[in-house]
């Protein structure tokens, strides 16, 4: 564990150095360590999207999110006034509950769920076959979608973190509808990184397209009239990572004995719509801390 952690940190440091000083002497990019690296927009690329065996655009690939200046990351209200979602009264209560009672589910290695992952700042990977698609995430989790125009959601579904996703094509756009999600008022699930709530009534419609080889676009509508007064939109663009890069392995549960030391909630949400990293809004370090940062945690079991 220690050996892998150090080599990962060293590789990340190397890639950061490479970004600053390595232009003259390009180093091979470590294939799987830079999951937090942002994508560079290539929406004018003229390289066509590959097509699958069914002739439809193939969404497979390792995708890096494009960061938009002035827009918060991990907040599904990024396009709302003041970056705040239109809570209903029940939604306000569910929000307070999540902030005061729920440890960030991702921090305790619970499946992150939909739509939360679509707001993540981390790259994700898609494996797309004509009848079945999977989106795979950094914390070694995945979400499955069945592509079948004749398939409908049954009236009752067993609640799950990623819900039941059924997709069909509208031209070259893959439309995924997800129902049967868990509820923040009783389950370890958040709508986004900011601890906004999601309910068992939530329906998520994702419209995915790949206009060129390098670009993946999402137009998503979340409808949850239990916790929000109206449906809201969330649009985002990702860029294809360099060839040969892909997700690696992330052993989320190795330090699970530290779970009980983590407090609830997302922390303070600033006026910029971003989740706070402590009351003094400390910036995250540019490189991950070494094992010494965890000594107290690991010996405090």
């Amino acid at each position, binding site marked *: *564990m220690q*050996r*892998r952690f150090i*080599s*990962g940190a060293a590789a990340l440091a190397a890639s950061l150095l490479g970004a600053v000083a390595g232009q003259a002497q390009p180093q091979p990019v470590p294939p799987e360590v830079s999951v937090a690296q942002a994508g560079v927009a290539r929406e004018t690329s003229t390289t066509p999207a590959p097509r699958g*065996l069914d002739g439809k655009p*193939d969404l*497979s690939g390792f995708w890096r999110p494009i960061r938009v200046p002035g827009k918060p990351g991990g907040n599904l209200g990024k396009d709302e006034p003041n970056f705040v979602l239109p809570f209903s009264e029940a939604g306000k209560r569910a929000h307070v509950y999540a902030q005061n009672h729920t440890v960030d589910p991702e921090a*305790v*290695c*619970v*499946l992150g769920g939909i739509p939360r992952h679509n707001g993540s700042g981390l790259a994700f*990977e898609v*494996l*797309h*076959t004509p009848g*079945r*698609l*999977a989106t*795979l995430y950094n914390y*070694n*989790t*995945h979400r*499955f979608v*069945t592509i079948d125009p004749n398939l409908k959601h049954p009236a009752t579904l*067993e*609640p*799950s*973190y*990623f819900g039941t996703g059924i997709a069909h094509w509208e031209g070259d756009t893959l439309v995924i509808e997800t129902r049967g999600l868990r509820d923040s008022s009783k389950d*370890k699930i958040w709508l986004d990184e900011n601890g906004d709530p999601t309910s068992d009534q939530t329906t998520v419609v994702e419209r995915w397209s790949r206009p060129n080889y390098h670009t993946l676009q999402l137009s998503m509508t979340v409808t949850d009239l239990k916790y929000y007064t109206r449906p809201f939109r969330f649009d985002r663009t990702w860029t294809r990572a360099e*060839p*040969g890069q*892909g*997700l*690696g*392995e992330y*052993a989320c*549960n*190795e330090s*699970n*004995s530290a*779970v*009980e030391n983590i407090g609830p909630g997302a922390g303070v949400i600033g006026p910029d719509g971003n989740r706070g990293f402590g009351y003094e809004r400390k910036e995250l370090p540019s490189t991950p801390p070494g094992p010494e940062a965890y000594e107290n945690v690991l010996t405090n*079991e």
Partner: protein
Amino acid sequence: MSAAAVGALLATAGVTPAGAQTGKAAEAVILGQPYQGPKVATPRDAKGKPLLTGYWKLLHEDGKPDGNLGKDQPGFVLPLTPAGQAAAAANRKTVDPEARCLITGTPRLLTSVLPFEILQTPERLATFHQLSWHRWVWLDGRKREPDEDPRYLGNARGRWEGDTLVIESTGFHDSEDGNVWLDDNANPISGDAVLVERWSRPDFHHLNLELTYTDKRYYSRPITYRRSWVAGAPGEHLKEFSCEWNTPWVVKHLEPGPGAIGANGNRGFGPDNQLVPDLPLGAVSGNRGVGYWLYRTNKPKPSDLPKKPD
């Protein structure tokens, strides 16, 4: 997980939810049945290579243990070196990594009695397993990296030999770290291990694996292992499972080790000697659960959870 690593949480708690299935009913859902219909051709990709994509259910072999990489060995026992015997003894003193919701590695996942799913694309393939694990395989012709990170699932590179997909994996975690077993029976795996899987799909409905595991540190010779799966019915897929009862109680208070391994090569099985876990799998609440499904009498179970962890 092994046939014997069986979830009887609800049974032991005296709660039987609607839809719960045990014994033969669970077998009918989990295990594959021999395919009797007309032969259907292997699906192929744009380059003419077989597509392994599908939902695969095990063709269990009567009289053979699942979850034991020694299934095809004399007495179902692996040829441990002295170092391997010491590592196995150490594993028997650790709580099953799967019970701690750690990533279940290869080849352990490949010994499971449970169905799994494959998605294959031109450059990338993944096998998807219970407890929400997935294993990546690169198909882009890359070579082994000299400084690869150790992983539970190894670093897997696939290549085609005719219609056979050959996946070679290296760079594993070592059981000496206390977090990984070779199979459900707590056999050890070393950082020197080389796993070679040969996958073939001779027709639409069948998937075959020939596996060779070479680990000179813990085993005196390479180990071979064969298995076959049958395609699930149309519309049958892997379901979500969230392994999240990795509480301090689980980590600190579960019985270590796999339990007694019987003469049939199976891990500490219950009085029913059932082949498959009860359904829903390992349930604590719906599709959330714990990886500790061992059916053993007179041993603590998660259903015996104290009110509050100490």
